[in-house]
């Protein structure tokens, strides 16, 4: 086991890693940018090294300074957390070259999964279903019709040069395809100067569901039950839960086995997450794999009563998987991400926290580096705290979360607490009927908290 590690991150995840390392008897080195001098990760680590000014590009992404910080403090390994350098294969390579253990998968796996298209093709070979569609652009209606027939309606036409939802048309029948294909081409030409289209199966009421993979360096791989992450806005997850209120037992079983087999096929090591879309018929499709710890990992920890960060560090040091496939998840867990942002327009709200009271009591977990009197710097992401609850049933977990957030107080900056309370008390959320479009619809319907009238 390592005797000292450096944490190349900040905020709640850096603090989470510091605590896990301390519990393992490992000394910790924090790195920090100048405005993070009074951040909790800086203050609570055993040692600390300033690695640059505010901009992440000059501090938390400054590879030479981070590597040097590890060298001058004689750290043996680097934990990258999530974000920043966590999925940068070059950083993992440099760590290896400098004789530092990168706490994560080998650079080759990070690189493979980093190219999302290549990853999908690779995972298809490893027998993971991917969303059926054209691998290349389609320029001819007949070709489109043949492919659509093959993969089944509804399908979606996407402008090859498009993005952000523009130039997309959902088609439900061959006749509609005949009409829409040329319109979509003209639209793509007009919008992007290129008529080329992709064709893909359209997933009705899709869910974002992911599987946690834990793998050691000795070929053992274990898949842990899913996290349901469909409550999201612009791909930013807001609430995660486990188990999914939607997934059937047999689908879960198939997803777990498929993810485990795929991870084995590519020789996965360390922690990773396989993200899937699941359609209303419980068909699942691989989207991408994240080769790092996820923000929402506590949901799985609560279900299995385990510590994924400790396990990740142990695995990096060469230890065998300590988890057993016989360990079963229990009850229900929820995580709410409390962001420093205006709940009406999602504009970040950095600044001084004048007053802060976290929730507590049984079944309530707080992962946060925020404190009363701390100034949230404007340079980094707005995640302020993760509140995680665990209870025997989904209903009890939701009530517990609602109570926890209701009695949580932050004064001085704006947060999305009111939005969470609205979602948690909405009929659709309570009944578990939501898909990845839910939050956008919910916000569009004006269900988001309205600014108070003066």
């Amino acid at each position, binding site marked *: 086991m390592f005797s000292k590690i450096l944490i190349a991150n900040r905020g709640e995840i850096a603090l989470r890693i510091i605590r896990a390392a301390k519990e393992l008897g490992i000394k910790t080195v924090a790195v920090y940018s100048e405005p993070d001098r009074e951040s909790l990760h800086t203050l609570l680590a055993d*040692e600390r*090294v300033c690695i640059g000014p505010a901009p992440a590009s000059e501090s938390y992404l400054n590879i030479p300074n981070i590597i040097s910080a590890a*060298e*001058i403090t004689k750290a043996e390994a680097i934990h990258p957390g999530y974000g920043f350098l966590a999925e940068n294969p070059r950083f993992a390579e440099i760590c290896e070259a400098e004789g530092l253990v990168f706490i994560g998968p080998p650079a080759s796996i990070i690189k493979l999964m980093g190219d999302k298209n290549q990853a999908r093709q690779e995972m298809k070979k490893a027998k993971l279903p991917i969303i059926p569609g054209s691998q290349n652009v389609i320029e001819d209606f007949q070709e489109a019709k043949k492919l659509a027939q093959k993969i089944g309606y509804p399908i979606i036409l996407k402008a090859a040069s498009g993005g952000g939802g523009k130039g997309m048309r959902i088609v439900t029948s061959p006749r509609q395809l005949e009409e829409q294909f040329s319109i979509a081409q003209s639209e793509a030409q007009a919008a992007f100067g290129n008529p080329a289209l992709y064709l893909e199966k359209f997933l009705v009421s899709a869910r974002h569901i992911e599987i946690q993979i834990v793998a050691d360096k000795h070929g053992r791989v274990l898949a842990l039950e899913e996290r349901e992450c469909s409550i999201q806005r612009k791909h930013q997850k807001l609430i995660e839960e486990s188990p999914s209120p939607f997934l059937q037992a047999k689908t879960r079983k198939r997803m777990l086995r498929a993810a485990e087999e795929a991870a084995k096929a590519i020789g996965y090591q360390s922690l990773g997450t396989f993200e899937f879309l699941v359609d209303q018929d419980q068909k699942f499709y691989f989207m991408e794999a994240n080769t790092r710890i996820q923000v929402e990992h506590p949901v799985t920890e609560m279900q299995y009563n385990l510590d994924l960060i400790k396990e990740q560090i142990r695995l990096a040091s060469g230890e065998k998987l300590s988890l057993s496939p016989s360990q079963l998840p229990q009850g229900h867990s929820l995580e709410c991400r409390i962001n420093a942002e205006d709940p009406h327009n999602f504009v970040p709200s950095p600044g001084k926290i004048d007053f802060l009271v976290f929730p507590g009591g049984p079944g309530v977990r707080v992962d946060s580096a925020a404190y009363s009197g701390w100034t949230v710097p404007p340079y980094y992401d707005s995640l302020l705290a993760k509140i995680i609850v665990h209870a025997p049933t989904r209903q009890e977990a939701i009530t517990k979360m609602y109570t926890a957030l209701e009695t949580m107080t932050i004064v001085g900056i704006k947060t999305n607490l009111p939005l969470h309370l609205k979602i948690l008390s909405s009929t659709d959320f309570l009944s578990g009927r939501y898909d990845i479009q839910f939050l956008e619809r919910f916000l569009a319907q004006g269900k988001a908290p309205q600014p108070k009238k003066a």
Partner: protein
Amino acid sequence: MKSKIDYQEILKLINLLEEKKLTEFELEIEGFRIKLVREQSPRPSLVREQPSPSPSPPTPPQPAPPLSKEKAKNNLHYITSPMVGTFYRAPNPSSPPFVEIGDKVKKHQTLCIIEAMKLMNEIESDIEGLVEEILVKNGKPVEFGQKLFAIKPLSS
């Protein structure tokens, strides 16, 4: 301003202080001296005053870096480290140091080397002056922004 400063003028001063978010103002002219201190709104963090009650208190690898806003005393100019690494006063162990206290240094003159990722980075002076103090010992680690040399500027 002579001795005939009146209430109106002080009021203007104080308003200015507030407007410009100054916290302190001092003026001294021919026997006349005025000092204003405005309340600082952000209370300084108390964390550093009493760290966690750990029986093994945190031991930073080097003295805590000075606050960047610290006022340079006696108009000294500080050369700070632009990177994390190991500080060397000489190009190699058998050579004499680049500079000693009291030396006059020119702009762009090499003051030390910082080794980072096995590369030797020469750190130059960005000012002409006299080396007043060398703040890091040879072979010691330095972090970003850490003060290395105090230089007394020479009026050019």
